[in-house]
Structure formats: C-alpha cells, structure tokens
C-alpha cells in the first residue's frame, strides 16, 4: 500500500462526500451516514448479487468464539477487521488472510466485542479490551507501539473503533459496571502519547456539575461513549454519544440530570473542549445509553439548507439537532409501546416518569434494557431523506435490587417478557414520522444497516442478509448466512467492481454482481 493513497482517503473522508473505492474509517466517512453513492449494484439488478468469497477468521486463542462486530476498513485492496483481541488483514480480492495480530487481554471484565480499527498513513490503531491503544504496521501487522490508557483493575474495558481526525487518534473508555468515570481522549498517532482527555461527567465548578449532588457521585457517574463518533470538518467538531449514568438502574445517589451522560456532545478535536451538548435522556435509570452514532445530515428545514445531526436512541426517541449549536429541532417518539416518559420539556428532552424507574416489586417498562434500538449501525440516505433504524417493541420488568442510599454497580435486574415485535423503520428526518416500516415475521435484532444510491438498503435478520428498496421498503434480495449478521455491512468498488461486505459471527462475506 502507498501512503499517498491513504492520505487521499483521509482527505476525502474529511468531507461529507463518501469515497467509493475505499471504506477508510468506521462509518466509511466522517458523517456516520453509512450511505454509499455507488450504483453498480442497484434495485434493478440486486437479484443477481452472489457470493464472491467468504472466509472464516481464525481466532488467536481457543476458548471463546469470534464474533465480528467490527466494521471492516478497506483501503487499497486490503480489508482490516477485528474481534476481541484479534486484528486481521484480508485480501479484498480473495478473502485470503494476509496477517493476523493477536494479543490476549487480561482481567475480570466481560469478554465483549471490538468495533474495528482506524488507519493513518501506513499505521493501524485499535484498542484492546484491557485498555491499550495499539498501533500496527498496516502492511505486516507488526506492533509499533502499545500504550495503556485506562486501568483494567478498575474494570474499564474498551471496545471502540478509533477515529483519526488530522493528527488525533480519538478513542473512549467503556465499562459501566463499577461506577468509574468515563473519558473521550485523543492520542498522538506517532507515539501514542495522550493529547487531551475529556471526562464525561464534569468536575466541581465546571458547567454541568450542578446536575450531580456532589463530586463523589459525578466522578463515579460513568457515561462511557463506547461507539465511534462523527466529525464536521467545516465546524471542526467531533460529535459523540455518551453512555448511561452509574450506578445503573438506581438514581438514588445521583439526583439530578447527570450531565453529560446519555447525551450527544460536540467536542473540539484539537483540545477536547466541550462546545455544546444535548442530553437525550436526563437522569437515566434504565441502562439506555445514547451511544448510537450521531449521524450528520446536510438537509433542508423550512426551505433553508441546514447542518443537522440525527440520532434514533435506545430510549425510543428520534432526535434532530442543529449541529452548529446543539439546539433541538425535533424529538419524536419512534417506539409506539414506550411508556417511561411524561412527554417532552421545552428543550425537546423526554421527561422521565419517576413511577417508571425500577422498583423493588417490579416496574413494567417499554423498551427493555437493550432498548428501542442499540449500537448496530443505523444509516441515512440523502437520496430518500430517510433515517433507517432497527427497533424492538417490547416490555420488561425492571426490579430495583439495591435499595441502598448509596447503591453501587448494577442496582437493578431485568426480567424480559414475551410478545416482542421487531421492525426495520425508515424515518423521514424532517418530521420524525415513519416513511415505511417493515415488521419482521420473527423478533430479533436490531442489525447493522447500509444504504446506497442504487436505492438499496442492506441489512440482516435471522440468518438472512437482505436488500430492500430503500424508498419503499420492499424486499428485493436475500441470502442465507451461516450466522446472523453481527456488524454493519459496507460497500466499495475494487477493480471496477462493487462489493458488499458483511460479517456474521466468525465469517466475513463478500458479495458482487454475477457476470
């Protein structure tokens, strides 16, 4: 690979225009739309889509199954994909493994996923579960540096795909089990040295500190932003969604809104300074983080071009903001069964109903803790003007298990109920109303989504990988995978051919038109 091509990829990624011969970062570009302008595969020929290759990635260790929840990068004919503790470089023409990097994470944290790598020149970046930022030579997989950025003994664990903005490698902490503070931070791409660190919960005297009873509660308040954010190069703002407050499920020791948890925040990527925020769930007690990708939309509202940001949240609401200042333009309930809020306040935020917090004898709440939706990537198509998201309509019983005035860790427990319905939903971004809704015949998901200028929406359900008519919501094509889709599908052209790549469990699939 040449550095020239990578730098070209980075420059292009800096604009909202998607690049077509690469997938250079987590969302394919900085906008988070996961929309490709490619049209070679389209709604008239998608029925001829067939398998170009598939490969089963090999785990570096025995003992647990690989699950590709990472979005692969594809640059210059090489795919880079990860799972917990593993990075693979795969020949995008054949599916053959070029190299593998493996490093076992140590500690008591749960064995969760990894969302992928970032690329800067000839260097790759990824985080280990035990909180190391690792840089690898993209050509060989040889480790260049490893820098620890959070202590696994505190039960921090990291899964985020880094994002490179100029000379900043932006990462964040994860781990909401033991009431630890959460951070977004930037590291030097050459040395791994820390450039800045922003704590999600404010220190005493800072704006937002008044939304916590005291510094002790704030510094144990969590809010881990464990999904990669988005970036507007004109405004020089990095947008990221933050996680739920800790302790989880009880607000007893943290009365107040608990800023900046469950929020969309805009940070200056050069300094880590907070520029604006919008809290989508004040004082969360249901484990509904707001880490879902804040998608950047260059849209039109009342005839005027606007710089917008949209997020369909785990809490069951669709939020549309002015991304220059964070002002709310629209909040719309997208989950019909939602029952935890008393409506919206004048800022456009849901008002949590205290009666629907977890109680010792059980509280019947929709959605369940897994949320109306979750981390699997959503998509926005500027062609249709629709925001696409997988949702779950269901109820759970939420039981408070820790009645202490100073609860710790998980202070509640969930009992799932039956009769859940799942759907693929297209939302008109201007109104928040459903443009179309496809109820799945069996519950499950949500799964990752990709949309393209070929009027296609690619996603999965059950073990099917499917293509929909993005405008109308009709099923156009499907195939059966060995496992359900576990990542966000991507697309690009290579040698003049458009490919669609999907990860399912330990398998990676490449589809192209049958000639």
């Amino acid at each position, binding site marked *: 690979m040449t550095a020239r091509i990578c730098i070209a990829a980075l420059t292009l990624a800096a604009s909202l225009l998607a690049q077509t011969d690469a997938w250079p970062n987590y969302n394919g570009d900085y906008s988070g739309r996961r929309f490709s302008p490619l049209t070679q595969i389209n709604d008239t020929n998608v029925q001829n889509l067939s398998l170009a290759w598939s490969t089963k990635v090999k785990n570096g260790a025995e003992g647990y199954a690989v699950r590709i929840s990472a979005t692969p990068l594809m640059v210059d004919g090489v795919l880079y994909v990860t799972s917990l503790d593993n990075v693979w470089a795969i020949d995008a023409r054949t599916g053959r493994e070029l190299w593998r990097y493996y490093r076992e994470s140590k500690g*008591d944290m749960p064995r969760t996923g990894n969302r992928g790598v970032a690329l800067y020149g000839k260097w790759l970046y990824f985080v280990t579960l035990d909180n190391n930022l690792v840089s690898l030579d993209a050509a060989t997989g040889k480790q260049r540096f490893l820098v620890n950025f959070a*202590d696994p*003994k*505190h*039960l921090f664990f990291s899964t985020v795909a880094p994002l490179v903005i100029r000379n900043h490698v932006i990462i964040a902490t994860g781990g909401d*089990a*033991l*009431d630890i503070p959460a951070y977004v931070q930037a590291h030097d791409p050459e040395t791994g040295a820390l450039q800045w660190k922003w704590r999600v919960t404010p220190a005493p005297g800072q704006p937002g500190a008044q939304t916590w009873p005291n510094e002790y509660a704030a510094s*144990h308040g969590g809010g881990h932003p464990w999904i990669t954010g988005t970036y507007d190069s004109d405004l020089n703002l990095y947008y990221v969604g933050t996680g739920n407050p800790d302790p989880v499920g009880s607000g007893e020791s943290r009365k107040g809104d608990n800023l900046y948890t469950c929020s969309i925040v805009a940070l200056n990527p050069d300094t880590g300074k907070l520029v604006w925020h919008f809290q989508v769930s004040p004082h969360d007690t249901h484990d509904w983080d707001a880490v879902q990708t804040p998608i950047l939309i260059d849209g039109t509202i009342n005839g005027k071009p606007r710089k917008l940001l949209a997020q369909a949240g785990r809490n069951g609401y669709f939020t549309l903001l002015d991304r220059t200042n964070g002002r709310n333009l629209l909040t719309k309930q997208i989950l019909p*069964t939602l*029952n935890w809020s008393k409506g919206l306040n004048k800022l456009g935020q849901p008002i949590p109903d205290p*009666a629907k917090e977890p*109680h*010792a*004898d*059980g*509280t*019947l709440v*929709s959605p369940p803790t897994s949320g109306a939706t979750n981390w699997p990537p959503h998509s926005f198509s500027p062609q249709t003007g629709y925001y696409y998201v997988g949702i779950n309509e269901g*109820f759970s*019983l939420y*039981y*408070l*298990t*820790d*009645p*202490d005035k*100073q*609860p*710790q*860790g*998980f*202070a*509640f*427990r*969930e*009992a*799932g*109920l*039956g*009769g859940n319905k799942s759907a693929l939903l297209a939302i008109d971004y201007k109104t928040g109303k459903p443009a179309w809704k496809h109820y*799945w*015949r*069996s519950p499950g998901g949500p799964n990752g989504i990709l949309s393209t200028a070929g009027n296609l929406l690619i996603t999965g*359900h*059950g*073990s*099917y990988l*499917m293509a929909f008519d993005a405008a109308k919501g*009709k*099923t156009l094509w*499907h195939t059966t995978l060995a496992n359900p889709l576990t990542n966000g599908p991507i697309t690009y052209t290579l040698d003049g051919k458009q490919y669609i790549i999907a990860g399912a469990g330990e398998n990676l699939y490449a589809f192209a038109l049958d000639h």
Partner: protein
Amino acid sequence: MKLLFILALALPLAAQLPSRAAIAGSNLDEAAIERGGALFATQCARCHGPAGRGTNPATDLIRSPLVRREETSEKLASHPNATLTKPQINDLNVWLKLLLFSVFSKGNQDFLNILTGDPRKGERFFTANCAACHSVKGDLAGMGEKYDPTVLQSLWLNPRRAKTPRTVTVTPPGITGTLDRIDEFTLVLKNPRREIPLNDDSKVEIKDPLQPHYDLYPRLTDADVHNVTAFLASLK
C-alpha cells in the same frame, strides 16, 4: 445452609451484598466463602461496613481498585487494625471477590420483596380480565405454593409456551396448520409437516393463545401487576 446464617450475620441491613445469585454464579470456593464471610463479619465489617462499602474513613472496598490488585494480600497482611494469617487472607480475598461480583456482574443481583400488592384488588382484576380462560380451582390451583413470587410475576405476564400451540393461516396458498417456526422467508408447519416459502405479499395470520397476555402490557398499571401477583401468590 450454613452460608445463609453467615449472610444474616454479616448483612443485617444491606440485603443486597453478596447476592445468592452471585454465590451461585461466581464459581468461587464455597468453603472459602463461608470462612471469608465469617472473618469479614467479625474483623472488617465494623469499619468497612457490612457490605464492604466503607465508612468514613475506612476504604470502600467495592469501588476501590485496591481489592483488585495483586498487592491486596500484602495490604491485608500489613493492615494496621487486623492480624491475619495467610489462609485467612486467602479466604478474605475470596469474600471480597464475591462482594465485587455481586455488584458488577449483570443479572447476579437478588430480588427484594416483591409481594406488595393487594390480593383483593388482584382478584377483582383477575375476575374481569383472566377468568374467561383461567380458574383458580383449575389450572391455577396452588400457584402460590408452586412458584417463588418473582417467578410467578413473570409467569403470569409471560407464560411458558410448551402447551400452547399457535395456529397459523398463510395466504397464498390458503393453508391452516400448527406453527412450528417462522422466519422472514419460510413458514414451517407441523401436522401435516409442510414448508411454505414466504415473500412480502404472503399474508400470515397467527392465532397465539398467549396473545391476550401480551396485549395486556400497554394497559397494565404497575399496581395491577403487583395486585395480580399478590392474588396468585395467595392461591395455596
């Protein structure tokens, strides 16, 4: 069980730590847990609190990373206010691990008392909404004896499926049968066994005997839930 006695000793107020669910789920040595718990109650709880959450100025053992470091044993060995042998330190380490596991491990928390409802109101709700299909002398006889209240509460809201076959009609071709399984593109019937491909235009109507339970959720108040549970728990 002896362990429960120790729990009662160590945790007069904070019922939540360590949870029985954590003891079952942690894979820690039960004998060491018993010894460590007894030791904690007599040697540590006075300052660090019955659940290890600390008192001013004694350290919160749950949120402190101290208890998760290799040097924990050294700290314990040189503790200014306790004299501990090496085997005792090992037992205490096990107990601390358990306290911690009870906190950070999702789903390993114990339920508190959930029987707060009014059984008479629950009975009225039952008569109005449930009695068409269920009888307290028939299928529900003795429910309160058979099940723990938490299980009971989940069970009446979301009954097990085993004995309740779903009938399905699919058009085209216009066939009715018993549902085996369904996904986006395939419907499988049993009796007679048939596999029917589905597309966007297939009309599938499923008659699920459990559906009336799911249909209740949006209109149930939490008081309804607790009252019905209290009523069912009273069916001895």
